[in-house]
Each structure stands twice: as structure tokens, then as C-alpha cells.
């Protein structure tokens, strides 16, 4: 039984539909991440769940209770804000205790909960300080502690990591997971960073222009994106997209453009049947471009692409190589390798083998995926 149900949730601002008929359900202990570019409506959706923004249409149910017309303070949600909203004139202790005091909890209970939460988030030495004396990371943990002491039915996070330095983000992510694991309550987390979403969410809803484009587990979104937008949005570096035309020659299907002619696997012929002679977008993840010598499949003249190496970005697991094609209009594409490509390859032309079994195909007009993977 879903503990949070949202149906056709809509938010209309003066001229703009910020959220357009969004529906989803949230399980008892589920962590849902709303992700999308800025202005996609993810934060507005979160604020409607909190009650900070009235819904223009649709329903929000907490269990059996319809909460659309219930004030934020009576919805019993906890929320971590992007700027943490830690009150600067109150001590850390008073900040964490704020919600319990508002609800008239006993002094003993407040003390017990505040000290326990502060200990969990390693700020127990700072309880008497004012927020100004704290670092950004510590302030963020005050905000997490404030949520931790509550018995809320729903936990909301509005881009809580976006103001932290990269080195602190990993620990903060663990802290949020710890909070979630301890509270065992449904949670909704908003971020614009897809890698954060992939790392944190049980399920991820990718939003664009006020609509949910796809909702599912991270691995599913990555392996079988429903459309071009999701394919492009999820994954860094982004998926490579090639404008190709499907051609048939001697019963074989080919994807063709001026710089490319590749033979497509037999399994996907049916799906592409109606597109023969028509343009489609072919997507290949950077990890599916291999050095011909190391490719885990047979390399032929019909699964290769050539490109000039523009940039080599080293990473701890290897490198990302940014290339562009030579023939026709130069087109950028990216490959990631498990080993480091030496800098001597810069400005050189190299061949790469395409793992076409992993390719995605999209209708160029609707953007919908042509394959049911």
C-alpha cells in the first residue's frame, strides 16, 4: 500500500504551467529522487508536497488523508532546505529543538532527541554555538538533525547538497542515507545533478517542462531510457547522439551518415522496420566506444568510427576522451576508457569500435525510444 499518492498534480503560475499533471506513488520506505534541469518543476512539486505552495489541481494523499487543503505545519512533514534555513540567532541546540518545542514536547524528550541526533551527525560538540560560527557542512548537518528529531510522515529534501564543496558532498550523502535508514519513512529528494540522483534514489523521476519523462530505478533509466531526453540527461559524459538514416542492403540494416556507416544487429530489425530510409537518432553511451584492440566483440569495418582527439580528461578509473568526426560537418562525441590514454594522442585521429548491441534508437520528432529494452 502506497503511503504517498500524487495524482495529476498541477501548478499554474500566472503565465506558466510549472507542474503539469504529475502522478506518482511512494512506498512505505521509499526514497524517490526528482531530477531535471532548472525550471523543470521539481522544486515546485516538492513545495506542493510540503504545502508551501498550493496546488492548482490534482490530489495529494498521505495514506488515506487528502492533504491538499492542510497547512504545512499540520501535514507533519520534515524538510531540509537548499540554504538549510538554519536560524542564525538560535544556538545549534535551539535550532534542532525548534520543531519539538513548537509541538510542545517535554523538556526531557527534547534533550534526549537533540543530543542523539547531534551525535549521529557529529555536531554534539557544537550545540552551544551559533550558526555563524559553523562551516557550511556543519550547518547542513544542523538542518539534517532538525529533521532527524521529528516523527514526520514524509521527509523532503530540496537540493540539500548544492551549496557544499565537492569533497564534503560524499559524506553528506552518507548522512542523508543514514537519516533515511533510521527513520524508515517515505522521502522525496530534489536535485539537478543526475549523478547525485543515481547515487541516492531507490527510484528516480526525470522531469522536464513540468512533466515526468520517466520514473524508475536508476539502472533502468540508464539501460532503457524511454526517450531522447532521459537518455541524454542521465549519464556523464552524456550519451553520444548521431543523426543517421536507416538503409537496407542485402538484408542487412545499416545506420548511415556522411561520417559513418555501421551494420546494425539482427535483433533490432523489427523495431526499425518502419524507419527504413528515414532519419533516426542513434545513441551510444561513451563506455560503449572501445579501443579496437580491447573491444569485447569482433571489430569489422562496419562498426567503427574515426575521430580526432580534442581533450583527454583523466579520472580515477581511467579517462574520458572528447573527439570529433572529420568527414562532413564535424560532430563531437565522447568515449570513456578504463585505462589512461597518453597525451600523445591529442590532435591525432583514432578509430573506435562501436558496441552496437548497446545502441539506442530514437524517433527524431517525438524523441521516443524505438527499442523496447
Amino acid at each position: 500500500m502506497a503511503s504517498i499518492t500524487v495524482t495529476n498534480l498541477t501548478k499554474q503560475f500566472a503565465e506558466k504551467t510549472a507542474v503539469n499533471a504529475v502522478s506518482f506513488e511512494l512506498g512505505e520506505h521509499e526514497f524517490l529522487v526528482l531530477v531535471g534541469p532548472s525550471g523543470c518543476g521539481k522544486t515546485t512539486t516538492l513545495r506542493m508536497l510540503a504545502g508551501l505552495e498550493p496546488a492548482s489541481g490534482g490530489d495529494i494523499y498521505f495514506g488515506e488523508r487528502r492533504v491538499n487543503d492542510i497547512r504545512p505545519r499540520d501535514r507533519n512533514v520534515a524538510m531540509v532546505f537548499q540554504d538549510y534555513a538554519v536560524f542564525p540567532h538560535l544556538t545549534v541546540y535551539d535550532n534542532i529543538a525548534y520543531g519539538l518545542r513548537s509541538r510542545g514536547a517535554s523538556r526531557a524528550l527534547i534533550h534526549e532527541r537533540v543530543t542523539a541526533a547531534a551525535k549521529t551527525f557529529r555536531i554534539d560538540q557544537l550545540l552551544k554555538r551559533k550558526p555563524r560560527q559553523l562551516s557550511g557542512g556543519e550547518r547542513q548537518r544542523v538542518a539534517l538533525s532538525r529533521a532527524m528529531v521529528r516523527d514526520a510522515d514524509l521527509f523532503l529534501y530540496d537540493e540539500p547538497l548544492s551549496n557544499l564543496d565537492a569533497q564534503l558532498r560524499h559524506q553528506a550523502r552518507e548522512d542523508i542515507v543514514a537519516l533515511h535508514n533510521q527513520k524508515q519513512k517515505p522521502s522525496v529528494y530534489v536535485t539537478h545533478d543526475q549523478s547525485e540522483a543515481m547515487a541516492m534514489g531507490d527510484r528516480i523521476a526525470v522531469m522536464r517542462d513540468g512533466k515526468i519523462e520517466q520514473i524508475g530505478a536508476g539502472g533502468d533509466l540508464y539501460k532503457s531510457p524511454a526517450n531522447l531526453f532521459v537518455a541524454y540527461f542521465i549519464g556523464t559524459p552524456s550519451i553520444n547522439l548521431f543523426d543517421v538514416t536507416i538503409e537496407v542492403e542485402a538484408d542487412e540494416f545499416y545506420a548511415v551518415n556522411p561520417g559513418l556507416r555501421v551494420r546494425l544487429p539482427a535483433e533490432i530489425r523489427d523495431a526499425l522496420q518502419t524507419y527504413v530510409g528515414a532519419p533516426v537518432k542513434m545513441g551510444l553511451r561513451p563506455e560503449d566506444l572501445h579501443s579496437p584492440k580491447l573491444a569485447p566483440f569482433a571489430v569489422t569495418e562496419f562498426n567503427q568510427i574515426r575521430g580526432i582527439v580534442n581533450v583527454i580528461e583523466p579520472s580515477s578509473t581511467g579517462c574520458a576522451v572528447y573527439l570529433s568526426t572529420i568527414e562532413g560537418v564535424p560532430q563531437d562525441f565522447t568515449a570513456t576508457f578504463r585505462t589512461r590514454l597518453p597525451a600523445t594522442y591529442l590532435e591525432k585521429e583514432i578509430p573506435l569500435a562501436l558496441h552496437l548491441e548497446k545502441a539506442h534508437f530514437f524517433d527524431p520528432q517525438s524523441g521516443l525510444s524505438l527499442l523496447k529494452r
Partner: protein
Amino acid sequence: MSSVQLENVVKYYDSALLPGAAPALDHITLEIRDGETVSVVGPSGCGKSTLLKTIAGLERPDAGRIFYNQTEVTQIPTQERGIGMIFQDYALYPNREGQGNLSYYFEVRKKTEEEKQQRLKETAEMMGIGFDLLLSRQVDTLSGGERQRVGIARCIVRDPNVFLMDEPISNLDAKLRERTRVEMRRLLSKFGITTLYVTHDQQEAIFMGDRIIVMRAGRVEQFDSFDALYYTPANLFVASLIGTPPISVLPAERDGLTLRLHSGDSWTLPEALAHTLPPGRLRLAVRPEGWLVALQPGDGLALNVTHIERLYTERAAFAHGQLGGAAINALVPLDFPDTRQVFLQPDWERSYVFHADNESALHVPGVPDLF
């Protein structure tokens, strides 16, 4: 184009009179080679923006000298140094169209119309496809990435000696940032302009810089290529700053071949490594990929796994937990089983050891020989 040298540059801010005040730049000596892109990274307040402003001439050093191409410029005002600057907030003149932004320089410098058109045309050609379309639009209607392109073009028309960029793309959202930085990197290598690129994001620093300056508290901790910073960090600070997820740091104590953690658990060191280390307190640091992770006890210490983070986009997973008072992120295969306990041992070849007090490096893996 030119090289840039700093010689013992010291800069104090007005807080210099406060007790405990430290210089914003503390005897900085470095050389940026002609045509090179150098990124500067460090925590906020480390002096990286001050470094950029001092090279630009927006701040005058209290001591030391600055050279462009062996010519001293320490006392030369900013506008005569021939630099191009790009800031976080784009700093375009908003009510001019893109072209107006480019030609502003020629208007204030009283260049002829002919010179102007010629240079504009050259720049637009070099900037690539679609750039002439951007030029005719009002700045207000440009997206963040497009504004940055116009910003770069504005600098390029002036044929600068040095390009200085301070967090130029941190206002853009993640996907756009990814695209823009590829574009910027390519333009910079195409024009071969000496560039200093300040950022707080280590990933961006790695991407943009041929070499990277790591700063802390007004000093250069290390100035080298990514590989050198990653595999041969000068100290624990550099090791902690470079690499995500961050390196795990375990306070430990060596006694013979035994390396004992604060929790009392211990590992046996290989003899060759043990001999290079002093006895007593040390700091062991291990990167996520530097752990040997086993499901069975063996030589490993038990780690209670709080959570396994699976990153499909990076084709990797991380096992998280606490060991000897330190947070551990250990790299495991994406299909690693869901388990509550694993057994860990550092891959000694790939681990780092630092001095317990001054945090200087005692043992580092060194850049691996890949090819």
C-alpha cells in the same frame, strides 16, 4: 601570448592588523608557460581569487614581482597589461547585442572601422559554427553557455597576452556546464592562449588544466599535472582534495611490520614498505580503488557496510562504512552482492602514507606505467 612568472609574491589584506592574520598570498613563486592552461583549485579563502587578481593587476602585491614574458609588470595598471578576464557573472554589457560587446574594445581604443570589422570576422570564424548568429542577439536573450562564448570572444578579439577566468561556468547547470567546458577547452587549445582558470570544483580543474595549482592558506601546496597530484601528492591536503570519492585517511601506528589502527585492529605491512617508514604514529590514506575487498576474512579487517552505492552511470559501486574512526568508500564491482560485512586490506602498492604531524608524504604509489 606570453608566459607569466611570479617571484615571491606576497599580498596582505586590510585584516593584516587583526591578531592571527595571515597573508592572502604567502611568497608565491611559480611560472605559467606560454600557451598553457593552468587551473587553480583550493577551498574557499585559500587565496586562489587573490592570485588571479594579483596577476591581473587588480590587486598590487605587497612584495615580490610579476613578469609577463620576462618583462616586469608589477607596477603596470591592469588595462595596460593586455589581459582578458571572464568572471562568474559573465560581465557582459547587457544592453548591447553580442556584437556590441565585442566591438566595445575598439570603440574605447579608437580603432578604425576597418580594423574592427576585420578582427571581428576573424574571431567569429575561429569561434566556430553559429557564432555569427549569436553576435546579432541581445545579451539578455542569450543562454548562460552562449554568454560565456560571447565573453570568451570578447576577450579573444583583443588578442590578450593572458586569459584569466574566475569560476566562469559555475552559474550554469550541470549538463550545460559539461558542454560549455568542452567548448572552452577546445577554444583555449585552438588559440593557444596562456590561461589561468580558478575554480573550487576539482573535477573542473582537472578537466580544464594542463597543470593544476593546489592552494591552501595563501600558499601553493603543489603545482603539477593531474597524474602527479593524484599519484604523488606532496602532502595529505593535496591527496584529500584531488579524487572523488575522497581518499580515506586512517590514523595508525607502525610497530615493526604491524600497522595498528586506533580501533586496535592491525594489518601486516609488506617488508619493503615497512622499511621506508619511520616507527610510531602515521597516517595511512587509501583511495576507493586502492582497497582489496573480500567477502571472506583472510588478512582483511572486517568493515560493517552501512550502504552500497551503485552508480550505473560510472559502472561502479562503492561500499561505505567506518573503520578505525575513518569513513571508508571502497570501490567494488557494480554487481557486488548486497552484504553487511566485507573484509578490507589496502593494496599496499596503491596506498599512501603521510607523516602524522606535518602531513608530508612518506610513501606514495607513483604514477603507474600504463603504456
